[in-house]
């Protein structure tokens, strides 16, 4: 029996879908069987981020309405052993699926997969409630901005009200150089304000744009800092204690000196 995680945030545009795609890919690279479930009915995007948009035949709503079996709607990602996507419907709206039906689909997926990652829509309405309905635990994604952290706080309250275990936080798109200057909230600021445990930190990385353009998750790229961060988070999800990576800007003078002197980690 596998485990289901919902990736959610409240605010849109903080990187839920990118996070879902990269964590799913990373877990598959670690040898896990993973199902990605796009719960954003009407505004699906996980298929595009994964580069699987041309392979959709059936979707979540088709499964729920009985037009096809679950196995028929699952798209196998041929690049990564054990990785599958269940796309959202694009032409229906959020009321096409009920929380009970969502629980059913996720339950069925958990029988086959080690991990079911549910990509939640933004907001706190029915789509969000559906996404949370089938989840065993929740991962909150935020960025170091007032609006995103504020919405994360609201979501944490709703996750608690749904009686899920205490959620964990991913801080996305952090810019170490701005944090250093005092022009961006640092991790401790956000953890203190939200009173939440940290799952990981993902630095701002242009490679994310490039990899999304190509439909190839950055987690597969060895040179990507964000990809490395996502791979670390995937290992933490599995229960491995992986230390946070240093957020020192690459090629900084101190880092280069340390490297020269053999102190580099």
């Amino acid at each position, binding site marked *: 029996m596998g485990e289901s995680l919902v990736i959610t945030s409240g605010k849109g545009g903080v990187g839920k879908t990118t996070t879902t795609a990269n964590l799913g890919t990373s877990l598959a690279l670690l040898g896990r069987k993973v199902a990605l479930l796009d719960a954003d009915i009407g505004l699906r995007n996980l298929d595009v981020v994964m580069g699987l948009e041309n392979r959709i035949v059936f979707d979540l709503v088709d499964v729920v309405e009985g037009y096809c079996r679950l196995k028929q709607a699952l798209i196998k990602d041929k690049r990564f052993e054990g990785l599958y996507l269940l796309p959202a419907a694009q032409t229906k709206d959020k009321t096409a699926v009920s929380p009970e039906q969502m629980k059913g689909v996720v339950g069925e997926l958990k029988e086959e997969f080690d991990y079911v990652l549910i990509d939640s829509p933004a907001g706190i309405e029915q789509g969000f409630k559906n996404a949370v309905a089938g989840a065993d635990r929740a991962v909150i994604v935020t960025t170091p*901005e*007032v609006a995103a*952290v*504020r919405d994360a*706080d*609201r979501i944490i*309250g709703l996750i608690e009200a749904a009686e899920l275990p205490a959620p964990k936080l991913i801080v996305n798109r952090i810019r170490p150089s701005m*944090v250093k*200057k*005092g*022009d*961006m*909230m*640092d991790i401790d*600021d956000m953890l203190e*304000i939200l009173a939440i445990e940290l799952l990981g930190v993902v630095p701002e990385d242009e490679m994310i744009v490039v990899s999304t353009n190509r439909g190839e998750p950055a987690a597969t790229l060895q040179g990507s800092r964000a990809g490395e961060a996502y791979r670390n988070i995937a290992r933490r999800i599995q229960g491995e204690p992986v230390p946070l990576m240093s957020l020192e800007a690459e090629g900084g003078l101190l880092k280069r000196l340390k490297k020269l002197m053999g102190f580099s980690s």
Partner: protein
Amino acid sequence: MLDLLNKVFPKDNRSKDIAKERLRLVLVHDRASVAPQFLEHLKGDLIEVISRYMEIDDKGTEINLTSGEESVALVASIPIKRMKRHAGTW
């Protein structure tokens, strides 16, 4: 040296401190208004505690959060009917 640094880069001007402070204030409000009956519960508890010391008009009691520029305050208006007579030492 540190003094000099603080003068050149005053802490208050760091935008992250402004962000933190704004966030702190907005969350006080969000959390209070989002939790159902938050203020009603607080009001009930306050009346219970204060009633041990004085007789108050619980129907006339009002409790609100008000925000100024840099702080959020809990403002309570609690009309007293009568002080209780106490035997003496506390």
